[in-house]
């Protein structure tokens, strides 16, 4: 931690004018509109000059609150550009810590940040990037209480499969081909006898399935409810018995 602190202090000394150290401020100060209009103009000049943009649009952006959920490979560039563009209040949500294996693609985290909560690592860099905006770290999993006063939420979390493969709970995720491709196999006179189609009795088709190994059924419920389509399609949760029970 001391090493990281020294590293960031070095960055401050090199890059930030005295009195505007984002570290000692524990974040950054809101833009005071009267302060240094020329600096404001310089900072945003390359977007103010765009035909589709204007001073009114820039002010509206400064009044906006955006929550970036996830400070990884997607959240890093998203939060970087939103901070640079001048979104007035930016929240960064991540409950993980920086790992050395993250660094090659998660550009808000540097080597001295390894072991540090990602939300804090990201926010300290964003404070250097744009000290004129308010940037808040949330070292927690996303929850609805974070939506208070937020205009826009950007979901930059892992894909479902990535997330639960990393926790070691997801063994496999499979989509099934259309049911017309299914075959029925029996053994007749010691040889396989194959007919087309699934069981005639089947009233519903399974489109895909996931193999999970979790500590409890409650945990399995949580994971099932986290599937991207779970808000519109029910997910059937089905405990698997030991191999020996397969003969039943």
């Amino acid at each position, binding site marked *: 931690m001391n090493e990281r602190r020294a590293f960031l202090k070095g960055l401050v000394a090199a890059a930030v004018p005295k009195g505007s150290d984002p570290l000692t401020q524990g974040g950054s100060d809101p833009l005071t509109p009267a302060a240094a209009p020329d600096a404001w*103009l*310089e900072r945003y*000049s*390359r977007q*103010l*000059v765009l*035909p589709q943009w*204007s*001073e*009114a649009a820039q002010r509206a952006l400064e009044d906006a609150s955006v929550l970036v959920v996830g400070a990884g490979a997607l959240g890093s560039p998203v939060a970087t550009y939103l901070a640079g563009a001048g979104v007035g209040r930016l929240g960064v949500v991540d409950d993980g810590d920086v790992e050395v294996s993250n660094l090659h693609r998660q550009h808000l985290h540097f080597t001295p940040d390894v072991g540090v909560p990602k939300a804090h690592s990201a926010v300290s860099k964003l404070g250097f990037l744009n000290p004129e905006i308010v940037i808040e770290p949330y070292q927690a999993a996303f929850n609805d209480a974070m939506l208070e006063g937020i205009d826009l939420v950007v979901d930059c979390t892992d894909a479902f499969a990535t997330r639960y493969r990393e926790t070691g709970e997801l063994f496999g995720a499979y989509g099934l081909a259309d049911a017309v491709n299914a075959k029925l196999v029996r053994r007749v006179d010691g040889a396989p006898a194959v007919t087309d189609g699934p069981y005639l009795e089947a009233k519903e088709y399974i489109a895909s399935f996931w193999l999970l190994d979790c500590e409890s059924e409650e945990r399995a419920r949580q994971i099932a409810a986290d599937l991207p389509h779970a808000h519109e399609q029910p997910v059937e949760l089905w405990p698997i018995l030991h191999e020996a029970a397969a003969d039943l």
Partner: protein
Amino acid sequence: MLDITELTCPMTWVRTKLELEKLAPGEALEVRCPEGEALENVPRSAADAGHDVQVNGALVTIVRR
């Protein structure tokens, strides 16, 4: 009258554009430009944005579209 003689490109056009945004369509803005690059760029950028532009020496008159 907007004086941008102390500015360099592209801030010359940035300032001019922001002043134009404050005007109603049909209103005119007089801009005092520095000699050189800006005197080419500012009238061209204003014309590209669809405004009417007249240049008289270092004085550029832009009528907001």
